[in-house]
């Protein structure tokens, strides 16, 4: 136990000076958001930037921050003018990222609203994978049965 505590403390103290890795992530996050906001006039690009940031945060296990960013991205996607296909990639990626941070209900809701069949199945498949990872096998099976393109069930 003592050895593990020592390692944990070493991990906390060692992180190159006073600033922890979490703080550095937070700082980089705020700077990245600031950069993305430069594209605020173009919801298409702004939301893509936000989705990208959220995906990176999810990878770092910063689920709250990722979730917060994804909700902002959802709002921006709704502002995209034009036909549905223009925001297909956005909505698919938002649904997948939401599943990765454990927001399954919203992820499924967004995925099911995608009209185009391939992207809808793609999103649902990734959600099903995340559900399996989270141990929600029953729900994963239910979702898998909703795939319109049979090969996505494989």
């Amino acid at each position: 136990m003592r050895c593990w505590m020592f390692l944990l403390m070493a991990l906390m103290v060692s992180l190159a000076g006073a600033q922890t890795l979490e703080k550095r992530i937070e700082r980089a996050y705020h700077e990245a958001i600031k950069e993305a906001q430069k594209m605020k006039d173009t919801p298409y690009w702004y939301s893509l930037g936000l989705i990208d940031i959220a995906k990176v945060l999810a990878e770092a296990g910063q689920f709250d921050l990722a979730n917060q960013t994804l909700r902002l991205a959802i709002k921006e996607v709704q502002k995209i003018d034009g036909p549905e296909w223009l925001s297909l990639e956005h909505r698919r990626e938002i649904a997948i990222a939401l599943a990765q941070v454990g927001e399954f209900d919203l992820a499924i809701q967004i995925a099911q609203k995608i009209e185009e069949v391939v992207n809808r199945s793609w999103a649902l498949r990734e959600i099903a994978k995340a559900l399996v990872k989270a141990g929600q096998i029953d729900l994963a099976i239910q979702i898998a049965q909703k795939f319109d393109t049979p090969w996505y069930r494989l």
Partner: protein
Amino acid sequence: MFIEIAEALAQLAKSGQFDLAIQIAQKVDDATMRSFAFSGIAKELIETKHIELINQFLNFAIKEAQKIKDALMRFLIIFNIIKELTVTGHIDLTNQFLNFAIKEAQKIEDAQRRWEAIFEIIKMLTQIGQFDLAIQIAQKIDNPLQHSLALSEIVKRLAKVGQFERAIAMIDRAILVAETIKVPITRLRAFAAIMAAKQEVEKRSKGSQEAK
């Protein structure tokens, strides 16, 4: 077609007709195909555990690979052989041919492909426990994102083999490298990879302590 020819030649070699297999392989005009044929024979022979014979065919393959103009192709052929050697536990042979693969990877012109090749080598080095060499190669990477991604990968492998203190030291080094990245989203990407590696260290060290 390369695979079919290599398999056919490997069958010949397996049945003991080595000279015939070599003769036929040498008749192939294209250096890539010749190299692929020899490496294919070596690969097929791995299960026979005839180290000397495998070594001989690998040397043929490397000799032929050196005649290939494209560095990426040269690398891919050699690396595929090494991967097979690692999986089958032929560590001595792996080490022997890794140096060649490292040199070839560094010659790849396309920056992205070169990085992918070097990253693959680093992953392989850590798999066979050659951490010093892996770190040495990682340190030569100019791009700070790639440098920190490579170090993060090394951290994960160090954690896997229980070298926690060294892993922590590598986390520090990766942070310093990542901190030099100017573009925020790229810096965030680097920190995310370091964080994932750090979480692996925490998980493994906790697991190892509990096991004790």
